[in-house]
């Protein structure tokens, strides 16, 4: 019984604390003002370009590294085939 009361008090206290812990807010906007055109600096946001540029660099580097890895794998495979053939021939 006491446990339940304590739990209830605890939850209430936490809620009150969060309510009062809000940062001071500017007076609420009472009107949204529409504009027809974005100001020039906002018309084409930069972030997609920056992200695209960085992704491009990563992707290109990864693709190239992968292509090297695949080609090395092929040469190693050929070497193994050759080694096997020579072993068979030597027998």
């Amino acid at each position, binding site marked *: 019984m006491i446990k339940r009361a304590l739990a209830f008090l605890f939850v209430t206290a936490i809620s009150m604390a969060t309510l009062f812990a809000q940062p001071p807010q500017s007076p609420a906007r009472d009107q949204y003002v529409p504009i027809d055109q974005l100001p020039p*600096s906002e018309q*084409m946001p*930069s*972030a997609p*370009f*920056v992200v*695209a*540029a*960085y992704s*491009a*660099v*990563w992707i*290109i*580097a990864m693709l*190239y*590294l992968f292509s*090297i890895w695949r*080609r*090395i794998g092929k*040469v*190693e495979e*050929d*070497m193994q085939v*050759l080694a096997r*053939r*020579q072993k068979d021939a030597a027998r």
Partner: protein
Amino acid sequence: MKKAFLPLLVVATLMFAYAPVMIAQAKFESTMFLLQKIMYFHVPSWFAMFTAIGISALGGIWFIFKNDKRGDWYAVAAAEVAVMFGVMGLTTGPLWAYKAWGVAWQWDAKLTIAFLLELTFIAYLLLRKYGGPGSDKLSAGVALFGLATVPFVYYAVNLWRTIHPANTVVPSLQPGMREAFWFSVFAFLLLMSLLIWQRARLERMRSTLDELYVAEDD
């Protein structure tokens, strides 16, 4: 020597992972704000490409004057890596330009010569692939002429009126941007070295394989 590769790869990966942190902390530029931060990948790409071209030309010279096959391995490896970094530079540039200048591309002096440089080394790779015997020596000549073009790319802004930012931007970088920039340059050059190393290793393996085939026929 081979054992150094994996730790260096880890270092390079970590540098690339950390680079966005440094770049995000760098100061904004006063006219282009966030967009200017493409510079931290764009300029180092071109630095890496020019360096790779230098390595390719040097490798080619070593090959044709000393008749040492190893020079040719590094020549072709560096040329391929140079083309790759060129693709990076030619991708990041127009992405930046589209927002900054309104057009993704313009045929001004610097961009034109840079594009021609990329074409020269694509031609290098085409020659290696389809040229048949003797194309290893000829490609050394191509790389050398390509190297002769590099100063023109760099100094084009001084010789002609061009829309591209001037060379003075890099030496005059303020402390807030300088660290991130040179960190990126170092990361890109490290990546370039690792890629050339591995690609040259592929050439060495192919050479060994050829010798094995020849030995088998005997």
